[in-house]
């Protein structure tokens, strides 16, 4: 009876559902999709060149790691993403805070950042190649362009959303500008900022594939592209799967840390 009412809550407008039930529903949906995929491919309804079976995808991922030193490709891709992401964050965090705190900084940078933000990143690939050649620099540069201009605006918005009461409280307790930013603004915006960083890190992976497909001889994107050239569809899927798993795992780790570190929000 109790279980039945929990199931009903799933279909209630803004219903409250136990966390475990929600988890099982999520797992169930995942299993269902994979099972359907296996059935469709197992029955030969789709040609394997177009859609290989999940078993074939996993086994080719395994083979890539075992025979082709795939860990090196994964490693270089992860390194590119993190270097570019950290380079974005290191500049975007202070700049975003200053943009929201001082109109002089905001008025100068906001129109510029807004403009660059709408430029299509893949179109900048030729430029990064002209500027920095085909080495690591051009790839990191592309990822940096793709994330920095988005991130800086997200950070500025996070800073803007800090209640004015906090700032004024700090002021009336004797904090100067620097102290206000360090002791009040930064801790107040921290939970939202970590979320902004997490979302931006996801975008980094999108641009990574663009960069690696166009000009690289290593990395997951490169592997996906060469596999396509040789018609190895299972290995294309394996590469996509690898990115998905890395992305999901990173996201979950950051979420977990978020819950741990920002316990005071619960």
């Amino acid at each position, binding site marked *: 009876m109790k279980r039945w009412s929990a199931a009903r809550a799933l279909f209630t407008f803004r219903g409250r559902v136990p966390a475990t039930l929600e988890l099982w529903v999520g797992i169930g949906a995942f299993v269902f999709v994979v099972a359907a995929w296996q059935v469709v491919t197992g029955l030969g309804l789709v040609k394997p060149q177009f859609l290989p079976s999940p078993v074939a995808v996993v086994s080719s991922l395994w083979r890539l790691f075992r025979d082709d030193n795939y860990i090196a490709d994964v490693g270089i891709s992860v390194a590119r993403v993190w270097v570019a992401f950290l380079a974005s964050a290191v500049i975007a965090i202070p700049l975003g805070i200053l943009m929201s705190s001082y109109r002089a900084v905001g008025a100068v940078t906001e129109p510029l950042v807004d403009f660059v933000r709408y430029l299509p990143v893949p179109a900048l690939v030729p430029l990064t190649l002209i500027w920095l050649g085909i080495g690591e620099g051009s790839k990191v540069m592309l990822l940096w362009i793709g994330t920095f201009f988005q991130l800086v605006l997200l950070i500025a918005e996070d800073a803007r959303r800090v*209640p004015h*009461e*906090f700032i*004024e*409280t700090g*002021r*009336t*307790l*004797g*904090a*100067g500008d620097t*102290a206000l930013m360090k*002791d*009040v603004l930064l*801790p*107040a915006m*921290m939970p939202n900022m970590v979320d902004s960083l997490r979302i931006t890190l996801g975008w980094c992976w999108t641009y990574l594939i663009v960069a690696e497909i166009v000009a690289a001889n290593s990395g997951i994107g490169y592997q996906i592209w060469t596999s396509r050239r040789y018609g190895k569809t299972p290995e294309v899927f394996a590469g996509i799967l690898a990115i998905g798993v890395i992305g999901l795992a990173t996201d979950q780790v950051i979420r977990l840390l978020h819950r741990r570190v920002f*316990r*005071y*929000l*619960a």
Partner: protein
Amino acid sequence: MPATTTQSAPFIEFREVTKSFTGPKGRDIEVIQPPLSLTIDNGEFVVFVGPSGCGKTTVMRMVGGLETPTSGQILLQGEPVTGPSRQKGMVFQSYSSFPWLKVLDNVRFGLKYRRDVSAADKTRIARHYLDLVGLMPFAEYYVNRISGGMRQRVAIARTLAADPLVLLMDEPFGALDALTRERLQQQLLELQKAERKTIIFVTHDVHEAVFLADRIIVFSARPAHVLREVIVSDELPAERTLDVSETPAFRRLRHEVLALIRDEELRTEAAEIAGAA
């Protein structure tokens, strides 16, 4: 600063203060007009009341240096107020305590920027004020674990720990339920007796105003001017318990202030309707 000026000058003085904002379409919106002159004594508990949106909060925020007068001056101990500082403590209705700090650290934040106090003394003083508001058992709690009333007590303790000359309170109990509010009002009076702080308190709750105030300043609708000053301390005992609200003097004061504000509210509404038509 020579001692003579402190003795002769009023503790807080508004000298011909006006305030206006530039509204939409570049129109000047007058908040305080005609020029406001007012003095507040050291240790006095002054409550500002008035119709909503009349500018009473702006008047208080100017004492805190969080707003600047358009003309005129505000003097604190004979010195013009030029901006916010530790001398003018502020307690807000919401977001009054920092969620990322534990209760004791919130109170300790009040002393964070004092160079004249050692780290050990900061902790000792913070504990003293936390004890004074009765929250010692919650010292290591984050503020999301304590009630709204307790959070306001944390904010009050933090402000007192900073040792300001004047405590500015912007509807600090406005978001609390009636019983909690009553208890906090009593505690605030006890605190003020112990600490002898000057308090400026803004509220729209007339009952609260009469219960707390030595003097109530009733503001008109915008642009604000002083409609009446009600000296509550002449009619109510300094020692106030909950029973005081049952006395005829209390009821009469409450009625007097309420009638003034009601008239103002009706007049503004009539003016707004006329303006809209």
